[in-house]
């Protein structure tokens, strides 16, 4: 008699537990909307003064002449989509909102620094000074895909306008996407990668609280410090080649 009740209770417990877990999994993996990244499914192209809306296509996007000041402008390179949402001038800065897809499930993907994200006018270049995340409304920070993987982000970026910089023939270019250096790199793996490339570089990792980074302990004489650092950063971080270039009109 009692055994029957125990069996029923056990079955109920298992069913409730499994259902609870299933609901949790479905909730965790719910599709994230792309509301923060208004990735238009068409792109505006301009040829001989005519404008039309066409379906998104990688070749078309890369060959298209986008009308200036019509946003978003979408560029796809190596199957990675980068989108320029808007451009404006405010307080001595030219600022732009840029969204991009992550090449892999790593929250550290970024637009890089002033040597990689630039504003040019055909005469001079200005490197980016500030980058500020535009949080995804679903996750509160990065865009996630329907499997819960980090899939992209949007940023508000600022270029300080110097005196005499002409606001014409403007182009915003992103040389590559890069991951930021990790807080706690796996030093053994980094050293193994350096060794496999026969770089001759030996590293020492920061271990004291409040410090971060990898120090070059030994390097070949023929390498100067800057060259050795570049080799180390290439091993320490990931990158995805561009460029993604956006011609923009005067805001």
């Amino acid at each position: 008699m009692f055994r029957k009740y125990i069996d029923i209770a056990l079955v109920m417990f298992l069913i409730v537990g499994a259902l609870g877990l299933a609901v949790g999994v479905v909730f965790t993996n719910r599709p994230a909307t792309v509301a923060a990244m208004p990735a238009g499914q068409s792109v505006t192209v301009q040829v001989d003064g005519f404008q039309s809306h066409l379906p998104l296509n990688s070749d078309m996007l890369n060959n298209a002449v986008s009308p200036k000041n019509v946003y978003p402008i979408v560029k796809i390179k190596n199957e990675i989509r980068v989108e320029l949402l808007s451009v404006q001038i405010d307080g001595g800065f030219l600022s732009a909102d840029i969204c991009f897809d992550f090449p892999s499930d790593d929250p550290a993907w970024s637009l890089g620094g002033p040597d990689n994200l630039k504003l040019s006018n055909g005469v001079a270049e200005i490197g980016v000074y500030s980058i500020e995340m535009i949080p995804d409304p679903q996750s509160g920070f990065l865009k996630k895909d329907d499997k819960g993987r980090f899939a992209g982000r949007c940023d508000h970026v600022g270029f300080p306008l110097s005196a005499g910089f002409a606001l014409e023939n403007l182009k915003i270019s992103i040389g590559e996407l890069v991951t930021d250096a990790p807080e706690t790199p796996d030093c053994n793996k980094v050293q193994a990668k350096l060794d496999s490339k026969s770089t001759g570089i030996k590293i020492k990792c920061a271990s004291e609280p409040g410090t971060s980074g990898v120090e070059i302990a030994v390097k070949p004489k023929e390498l100067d410090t800057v060259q050795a650092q570049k080799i180390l950063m290439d091993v320490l971080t990931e990158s995805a080649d561009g460029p993604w270039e956006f011609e923009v009109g005067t805001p």
Partner: protein
Amino acid sequence: MQKVKPVLVILITAMFVIASSFPFTSVAFAATCSGSGCNGLFASSTGCGNSVTNVQTIFPASSRVDLRFSTNCYTLWAKTTNKDSQGRSFYANATLWFPTSPSYYSVSSGGKIAVNQAVVSQQRYSGIANPPGWKACGYVSGSPISGPVGSPCTP
């Protein structure tokens, strides 16, 4: 035995459901602290630094200053990296400002740090990536820096 058999079938089915769900769950990075229990601790020593994204970044001369966010601990901290293009070493400071007492965490390097080396402040639980009033400040210099630093700061 006849009573036990259905139970076993259900048990095995339930275990299958549970086991098959694991590959689809998000990867969780283990951390040794959570919530406000992370306050004042370093991300690198708590596992919070294993999954990080930059919320705000500025690029003052020869450096970069990041407001970093842990995607597994929901904490923020400041990080200042020597990015001198000529390979020079500098003193550095990283200061995290936040609205509640003690209002900041600040770390200055004891000596000059090499290119791509960084100083990192203690972390503070924020719960969200972009809380208003939080910012990272810092810079690099040829002279020792005493914190906290109030400028330059992230937007």
